[in-house]
């Protein structure tokens, strides 16, 4: 049997902060072109896992991206392979949208080198693709949450990575902008052949867009697989400690993944109701 072309493989991955183990014994493979979404309740270790995969948080075990061991790689070599869009970015003061996107070319430039024609062409192309051209001269501080998310995506994509890591890409967005950003990521990964690993809170959106889900519980993988196998009511109820109803995918209604609805917990009747 021929092994699939794994772009990312993590083996026995663990992250400790002092005596506390935040995640442990994670085995994860991501095939090139796939979209894998990491889900789980607060504190499950989603962001920690993503940061370990990006080489920001030190880890035990092994993480390889495009054949390169992440902990041993230089930031420059790693940035050629993966880009990370963080949940709460630091936005420098008085920087324009175009200049922030241009920072995505850092890994392609030497210390004393300035951006060349190709770098500017790439930035212009990405600004146009993400409908950011009218905002190019705007101060980033004046953007809405959805606009900022698009700018960060543009910055990540001009890095020309093979793997795009997205930490809660929709957390600060309203319903309309959530769908807009995720649709955009989906289109871009198809256009650019980029592999996506994201963390997401919204289970229905995760199931709608990802090829595979990885459900984390207290730092360990509770289950991974296609959305229909992971988003099972019993499992979700047990891990999130809340009753849910899971509706099956309904392509006729435009739903390709299961929909997870939270139910009101059944409480004992109050004495006066008896």
């Amino acid at each position, binding site marked *: 049997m021929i092994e699939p072309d794994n772009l990312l493989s993590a083996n026995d991955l663990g992250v400790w902060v002092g005596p506390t183990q935040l995640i442990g014994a994670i085995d994860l493979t991501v095939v090139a072109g796939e979209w894998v979404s990491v889900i789980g309740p607060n504190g499950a270790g989603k962001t920690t896992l993503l940061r370990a995969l990006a080489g920001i948080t*030190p880890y035990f075990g092994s993480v390889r991206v495009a054949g390169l061991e992440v902990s041993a790689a230089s930031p420059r070599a790693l940035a050629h392979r993966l880009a990370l869009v*963080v949940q709460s970015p*630091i936005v420098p003061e008085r*920087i324009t*949208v175009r200049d922030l996107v241009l920072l995505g070319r*850092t890994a392609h430039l030497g210390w004393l080198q300035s951006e060349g024609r190709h770098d500017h062409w790439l930035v212009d192309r990405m600004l146009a693709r993400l409908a950011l051209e009218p905002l*190019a001269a705007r101060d980033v501080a004046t953007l809405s949450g959805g606009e900022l998310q698009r700018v960060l995506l543009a910055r990540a994509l001009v*890095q020309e990575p093979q793997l795009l890591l997205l930490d809660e890409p929709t957390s600060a967005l309203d319903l309309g902008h959530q769908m807009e950003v995720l649709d955009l990521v989906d289109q871009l990964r198809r256009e650019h052949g980029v592999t996506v690993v994201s963390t997401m809170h919204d289970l229905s959106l995760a199931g709608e867009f990802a090829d595979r889900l990885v459900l984390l519980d207290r730092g360990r993988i509770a289950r991974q697989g296609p959305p229909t196998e992971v988003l099972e009511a019993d499992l979700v109820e047990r891990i999130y400690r809340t009753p849910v109803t899971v509706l099956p995918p309904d392509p006729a209604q435009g739903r390709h993944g299961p929909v997870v609805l939270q139910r009101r917990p059944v409480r004992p009747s109050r004495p006066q109701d008896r």
Partner: protein
Amino acid sequence: MSTRARLRPTPVLVCATSVVVAALIGAALGPVWIAPDRILVWLVDQLPWVDLNPTDPLTAVEQVILLKVRLPRVVLGAVVGALLAGCGAAFQGVFRNPLADPYLLGAAAGAGLGAVTAITLGLASALVPVFAFVGSIAAVTVAWLIGSRRHSANPTTSLVLAGVAVAAFLGAIQSFLLQQHADQLQQVWAWMMGRLVVAGWSQVWTIIPYAIVTTVVLIGGRRILDVLAVGDDEARTLGLDPRKARIVLVLAATLGTAAAVSAAGLIGFVGLVVPHLVRLVLGGSYRVIVPLALLLGATVLVVADVLARMVMAPAEIPIGVVTAFLGAPFFAMLLARGRT
């Protein structure tokens, strides 16, 4: 607002012109007035293949005053000012801290202790700058060794705190030495409040190699300062090793600061205010801030030296007093207007 932060010709030309004008004024003013236009014509006339045949050339005495006294002082002031402002901009960028100045990691305290040690030991005055230079480099090195940890959650804060601790410790030793050698207090104070006293060009030539190294590294690294502005984690995922970048930039800025301090004593506010002034007018990109801060710093210190010489002539005010007297209210005004 333009889409790109680029170093445009107009601000460079304005700042470069301000340096030349300030230098001419600095060279013209003194007990003997030499008209700036005569200085300019004479200087241009000295260039190879230029023969202006001036109608009113400088006299031999004026040439001696210009070449041996005023020009070395003006050039030294310009270089020191440029270094302090450029290094201030670099420190503000590296530490993502608008209150950073070239003395953030203990350079001033180290230089102060070095100078006080040399003076209280009764060493030759020529050794004071050497001790100041060594003290400055040593203090920053110690602060770096204490505050720089590979996996610190907040490496810049650790470094700044280490700088505070080192400065406090060295300050205590300095105070003790001063208390034990109260008779040399005036000499020490004269050094600490900053002064541009030159004996020919020797001090200028001494500082020039450091100025060149610092300027080349800071100008070359100004794009890197923009990357560091997004924080260490994001900078790393963009492909920059923030720790290595900090080492190179802090090393260059420390060399420049130590050279400036050893040549002119402790001159405050130039390194803090000048980068803010550029930021206020031309935006937050270090591609613009660093080169223009270098130029504007030169202008500011040459003008401050003119004031130091002229306000109470024939007596001189320490130049550090002038920069603090003008810089502090200006900075307070920026803060009050919420523009920093």
